[in-house]
């Protein structure tokens, strides 16, 4: 699950980890000259956490799909 978010400050690609974001962690821009941190506001953590849980449930269908081959 490698995703990137363009840094609003320097447009560098910030790698996103949904699980970390859902736990309230902030992601730091890899551009050392920028140092911006992106996180999820506390009032949105529950929404994101629910979405991540549902996504994991959806992803659990993948082994059955591979077995069909």
């Amino acid at each position: 699950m490698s995703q990137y978010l363009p840094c609003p400050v320097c447009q560098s690609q910030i790698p996103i980890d949904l699980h970390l974001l859902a736990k309230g962690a902030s992601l730091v821009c890899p551009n050392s000259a920028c140092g911006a941190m992106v996180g999820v506001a506390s009032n949105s953590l529950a929404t994101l956490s629910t979405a991540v849980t549902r996504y994991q449930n959806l992803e659990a269908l993948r082994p059955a799909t591979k077995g069909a081959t």
Partner: protein
Amino acid sequence: MADANTPLISMAEQFTGLPMQALIGGPLNAAAEANGMMAVAQTKFLLDTAFSFVKGTDTTADSYAPIMIQMTLTRGVLVPVNPEADPPVEPTIKQVQTSFDLPLLTILPLNSLAVDDVSIKFDMEVKSSFSEATSDKTEEKMAGASSFSAKVGYGIFSAEITGSASYDRTSSSGRDTHYEKSNSAKYSVSVHAGQLPLPDGVKTIIAAFTNAISPITMPVMGQ
């Protein structure tokens, strides 16, 4: 005795009798059906998780509104020296926090949920062989022997005659025939189905959502 013209097994018939449609199409259909189920589940997941249903009114239709999550951006801002202050303020870096709303849709890795590789390899090998070996050998041996003896006497004369005769004949003929022919065929089928990329329209929507989070400069009051 086997005939040299004995036909070999027809390769075409062997392959024709195989249920190729079931052998190849079965797993592929199963994968496609699984992919379809995944797409349906993914769509349902999208609508249930990333959108909220908005009931329409008499004048508006039902719609789905994207669920937004609030994100915070923290960055350092350099506060310059203020020479007019008393005492003068040293330059400092102030952490400024900016909030912006982001559609939940844009941070979910949707396009990774699909059957990305289906590989079916079916090998069938049919071998047919025919061999004929003939060995024919004839041997004839003949032998004969005879002897004779005669004695004649007349007065004081006598004569005796003896003789013998023999013959020996050997005749041999051989024929060795070896005939062999073989036929083999191999049938290999490889099917690969990959995931299609996201439609350009969906990419455009996601790009628009992504670009919408870029900060913009607000006009200064009074200008």
